[in-house]
């Protein structure tokens, strides 16, 4: 009844339930009503089509940043630099978006590809450093995050604009936003990007599971030594994996730049889209479909949470606690696996 596959599905599921339960207990301990709290969360995420639109809007970049982390992990790399890759992708898409006047059929794909290319470039640097010099990618990608943050700020202020804190809006021909969706969802910021995100999940699945390139990438990820012995180029695959991962992250930036906001403002800190991507990938067990589902959950929690203080008086920080607990339970999956097996044994 419990084969490995079902266990792999059960673990995240049970983690989510445990996380929510633990959240409820915490709410009770602090004197809040958990039913009211989660009710507010549910309504805040799905209460009407506006909230639903906003939830989807939040889910979109999470899918892509989750894919970025998951792709790297599947190839044995820990890409902590998704955050920075999101930044450069965001900037590249907006830059193309404001700098040109082109027909949509050219402009939008150009802006989106620019984001992917920028992200890929940002992934290329740690990739090549690891492949050629053996520098650990975690250290490089963390530093690249800061480089991305501060250089995009500088570029926004001094290159794209003249001393402003914020770029102009991207031309309509480069925008993913749609009046039609906006009207349907009472001006939520949901945009066509969700289609790109879901499509990219398919692409990731296809590359990894169906192509020779994916076979090599996974092989190198699991065992670089054996892959080298089998005649694969380990270095080349590391660089490529980082670039593809970075491209996904860059697209997450384009979702914000061309969809949600339509501009880029100088930022005082990280957006956290990239960092949340790590959690999304972990919860999604690094699979394409898992990432989409996990991103959906995170988006729901994040948007729903905003409704909790007003309706149920529960502070939004509580949702952060719930998310942290879910991650904790996934990370301690060993424990859950043990319980499942125990349960199975007694069931016999």
């Amino acid at each position, binding site marked *: 009844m419990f084969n490995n596959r079902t266990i792999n599905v059960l673990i995240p599921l049970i983690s989510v339930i445990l996380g929510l339960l633990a959240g409820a207990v915490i709410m009770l301990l602090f004197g809040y009503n958990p039913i009211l709290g989660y009710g507010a969360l549910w309504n805040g995420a799905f209460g009407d089509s506006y909230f639903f639109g906003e939830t989807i809007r939040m889910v979109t970049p999470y899918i892509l940043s989750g894919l970025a982390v998951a792709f790297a992990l599947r190839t044995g790399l820990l890409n902590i630099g998704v955050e920075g890759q999101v930044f450069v992708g965001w900037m590249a898409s907006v830059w193309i978006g404001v700098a040109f006047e082109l027909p949509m059929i050219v402009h939008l794909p150009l802006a989106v590809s620019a984001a992917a290319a920028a992200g890929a470039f940002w992934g290329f640097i740690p990739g090549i450093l690891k492949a050629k010099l053996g520098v650990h990618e975690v250290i490089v990608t963390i530093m690249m995050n800061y480089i991305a943050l501060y250089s995009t700020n500088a570029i926004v202020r001094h290159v794209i604009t003249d001393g402003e804190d914020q770029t102009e809006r991207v031309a309509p021909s480069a925008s993913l936003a749609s009046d039609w969706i906006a009207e349907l969802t009472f001006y*939520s910021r949901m945009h066509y990007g969700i289609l790109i995100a879901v499509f990219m999940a398919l692409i990731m699945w296809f590359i990894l599971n169906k192509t020779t390139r994916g076979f090599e990438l996974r092989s190198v990820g699991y065992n670089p030594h054996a892959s080298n012995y089998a005649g694969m180029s380990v270095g080349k695959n590391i660089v490529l994996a980082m670039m593809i991962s970075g491209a996904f992250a860059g697209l997450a930036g384009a979702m914000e730049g061309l969809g949600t906001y339509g501009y880029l403002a100088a930022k005082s*800190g990280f957006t956290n889209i990239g960092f949340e991507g790590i959690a999304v990938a972990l919860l999604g067990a690094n699979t394409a479909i898992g990432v989409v589902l996990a991103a959906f959950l995170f988006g729901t929690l994040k948007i729903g949470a905003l409704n909790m203080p007003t309706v149920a008086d529960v502070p939004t920080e509580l949702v952060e606690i719930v998310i942290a607990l879910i991650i904790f339970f996934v990370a301690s999956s060993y424990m859950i696996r043990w319980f499942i097996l125990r349960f199975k044994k007694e069931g016999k």
Partner: protein
Amino acid sequence: MKSRRFLLILALLLSFGLVLAACGSSDEADDSGGDDGESEEGGEQSGEDFSVAMVTDVGGVDDKSFNQSSWEGLQAFGDENGLEEGEGYDYAQSDSEGDYTTNLSRLVRQDFNLIYGIGYLLQPALEEVAEQNPETNFGLVDSVAEGDNIVSITFKEHEGSFLAGVAAALKTETDKIGFIGGEDGDLIRKFESGYVAGAKSVNPDIEIDIKYAESFAAADKGKLIASNMYNNDIDVIYHASGATGNGVFAEAKDRKQNNSDENIWVIGVDRDQHEEGQIDGNNITLTSMVKRVDVAVNEVATLTMEGEFPGGEVMEYGLDDDAISIAKTNEDAMTEDIVSKVDEWKEKIANGEVEVPSTDEELEEFESSL
């Protein structure tokens, strides 16, 4: 062909959403009863029906600075008019930049009559939401937004900062003072310009170190910068950095605790931050550039409730209406001598003798005229 398929998928997604939405509202029917129905609102409103809400920036409602001050204003307004928290007045907290629009829209959908965006960071989001919801009234604190249903509330912070600069220049023993800003931008430059002008008016040779933390919510950076400044003989720091300033206070208090003879000071911002500077009978808060956001927020809310919403206008508050002032709570530190000097300069500003600069260019001009 392609776009038709796109639409199809989208329609599917949305119908899914609507199903969920239906589930959601049936679940919570008792809680959110009467959400639909009257969204009409005339000019006239009694205290009973009127409701007002605010959206914080990332500093949060407990930032001990202007978000908190605004919220105190709303609370006072609620008390005066017998409103209930949650129904009559409320706030929404933003954890990230992406939350501004969501929070504003959500409050619109909860039928609040007047919605404030606190802080200039909310300007683009507020303008966008205001345009989409012409029936709702909006207020923006600290910046100027375009729109007939928006009132912009600004302050002459440069004037208050000028007086803070005067106080700092009189207090310093090393002739070195510091300024810590939050995010670099027009607003905080206003503080900076006024402060520098004030200090140089007292002592043209004074050294002023200016640093930006690039955040209104990074107490750790605030602490680090303050530590550097105090190490470099600077003894008075004026911070205009929201919750980042909590780090400045923490650093000053740490130092004071280790060595109570060290004469170091912080000048607070927005609220009277006297409490923040309290340590073992000493107080390191020299003064604060008090900006009565609460007064302004309360006043505009009252106007709106009375049906006199000043849509499209810019309300500018300054020294003359006591919306900007210099705190004199710390009587040990603000000696009579300093207070009288500060009042002297305040008089000069009031009667137009001194034109306080509010931008970098104006400051340059001002400095060359000294």
